[in-house]
């Protein structure tokens, strides 16, 4: 327990990270200068529309950015349980291979295609254990894997000898969750874990994830476009737009104050099952084109409070009381007014 006091309260931290995709004629900046902490033991959610860079940002932790993307600036720090500090940029590919999944694992968006279709679930679990030099004997491995599958409330006997196509979408997603736990990681990245699933399955999956977070103390980084899920599930929220972090803070304050115009628009544009339907209104305009970003604040063309200054230069991240941070010239004023 003593050790806990020395431990950094963050498990990982993005430090001014920029990621770009160099193409033949131009370079797309998918992520621009993001600084973001991931609090230990908590659930941090990244919300954003498609193309806002949330998947790119999170997959940079395990160096899984799809080609030809590369980190063009900044670094990612990781603080494992043993109290050391890892600079992920400096890891060699071999070190990264050991780090990946053992410390940070990921549940991918499409569980259907994340599992190898020609291997049974058992083979895939064993392959991963073997690759990471697991000291367990064969019987122990089998026991470990069964335990995990039962933990996610699956019938281990049946699932282990099944091929992915024999499982339903919800089952595959739960296999993926069990799979992400196999090496006892400290951080799990969840990339839209319930997009293709219906609400009842979604509810089960999130209850399960919440249990994992609470019982095993595993930190989670959730990416989603659905702000209702964030409200129900997450502790901290980062709102992304056009590759930038627009706002960051704890979920309750962000929802309560709605300081940033984009966050306000996003919450206001989400129909809810309760409350007045007439209060819901869309955000005007279209999401930004990453190849042709507007000058100044990138949200300015859609912002209802846009002033002259917003069109000339991009605002900096401003921090206010309570740890809320926002990228807007009028972020401080918004809270008072």
């Amino acid at each position: 327990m003593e050790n806990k006091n020395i431990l950094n309260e963050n498990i990982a931290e993005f430090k001014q990270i920029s990621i770009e995709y160099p193409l033949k004629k131009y370079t797309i900046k998918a992520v621009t200068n993001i600084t973001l902490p991931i609090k230990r033991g908590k659930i941090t959610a990244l919300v954003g529309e498609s193309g806002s860079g949330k998947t790119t940002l999170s997959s940079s932790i395990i160096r899984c950015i799809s080609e030809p993307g590369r980190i063009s600036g900044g670094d990612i720090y990781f603080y494992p349980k043993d109290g050391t500090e890892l600079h992920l940029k400096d890891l060699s590919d071999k070190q990264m291979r050991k780090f990946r999944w053992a410390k940070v694992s990921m549940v991918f968006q499409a569980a259907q295609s994340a599992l190898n279709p020609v291997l049974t679930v058992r083979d895939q679990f064993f392959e991963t254990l073997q690759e990471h030099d697991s000291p367990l004997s064969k019987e122990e491995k089998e026991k470990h894997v069964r335990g995990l599958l039962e933990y996610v409330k699956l019938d281990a006997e049946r699932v282990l000898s099944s091929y992915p196509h024999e499982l339903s979408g919800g089952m595959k997603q739960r296999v993926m969750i069990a799979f992400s736990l196999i090496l006892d990681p400290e951080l799990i990245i969840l990339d839209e874990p319930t997009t293709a699933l219906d609400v009842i399955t979604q509810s089960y999956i999130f209850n399960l994830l919440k249990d994992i977070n609470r019982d095993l103390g595993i930190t989670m980084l959730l990416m989603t476009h659905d702000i209702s899920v964030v409200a129900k599930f997450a502790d901290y929220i980062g709102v992304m737009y056009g590759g930038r972090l627009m706002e960051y803070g704890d979920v309750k304050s962000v929802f309560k104050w709605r300081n940033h115009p984009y966050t306000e628009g996003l919450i206001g544009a989400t129909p809810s099952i309760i409350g007045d339907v007439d209060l819901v209104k869309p955000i005007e305009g279209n999401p930004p084109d990453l190849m042709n970003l507007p000058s100044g604040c990138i949200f300015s063309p859609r912002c209802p409070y846009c002033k002259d200054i917003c069109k000339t230069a991009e605002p900096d991240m401003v921090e206010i009381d309570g740890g809320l941070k926002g990228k807007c010239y009028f972020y401080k004023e918004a809270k008072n007014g």
Partner: protein
Amino acid sequence: MDRSPLMRLENINMVFKKPGSLLKDRNIHVLKDINLDIYEGEIVAIVGESGCGKTTLGKIITGLIRPTSGNVYFNGNKVSGVFSKDISSYNQVQFIQQDSYAALNPVRTIYQSLYAPIKTSNRKLKTKEIDDKINELMALVGLLPAEQYLSKYPHQLSGGQRQRILMARAISLNPRLIVADEPVSMIDVSLRLSLLNLMKELNKKLNMSFVYISHDLSTTRYIARNGRVCVMYLGEIVEMGNIGDVIETPRHPYTRALIQAVPVPDPEYHGNDDLPLKSMQLGTLEDRGDGCSFIERCLYSCDKCKQKIEHVTTDTAQVLCCNLENVPKQSVYSLKGKKK
């Protein structure tokens, strides 16, 4: 309601055959005894989880597939799908697909995609007239200036724009009924609402009926507002009624679970996380008997559930359940805990 319905579905059954063992095919009973009336100018929402047959029902309404048994009446006349001779009356029913990218021909420009159906429906029209019509349609769906979009190919447009094109194409033949199958599920959150608003506007302005198929109750509530909702479970309509009433006081055990599962965009709102369901596993569609299909997951099941069950009319809705007196009557929200 005394008005005669625009569209009437009567005892629709849909059975798909699947090769099973050597001698016997397996029967997949996708839709079971569906009865549904759709009136002029109405928005009917169909909700349910994946695999409950909502898209199949949509295809039957648009005549793309023929039901195994049962009758479809449009405007009082019996119809038997697009492959029959009465196809011309059937262009008054149009379909908007879920995947806008797959629904548009990738090697045709938007102009060509919009031109073809209008020309085919009326060969006498001159190009000039069709062009005017297309411009009018583009203005109606909010894609202005039209010239900017017409010469483009589908891949050059964003998802929201493509969905608008689909909508323009669907209304180009002045239909009276549009079936929209998950039209916004692949669209960004900030653009969803404007598309839903567009559909509502078309419904009001042109008095078009809409069948809105979705798994998302929040958007359904937004678009249907005062319309009706049909909750489907394994090919049956388990509850049908005014959407406000159904969401406020759901009566069928499945509807209760479904509504409780919907996340509320407010972190202060702490609900009961445990859904009122016995298991998470969906029942089977194969070789179904007469009994209730929800029986394995239902908390309130009794002996009667194994026999044939009928719809019960309550003061708010029609519910397919034999044991309603045992199902709690209070709304799901009070169970979920009140907002501070």
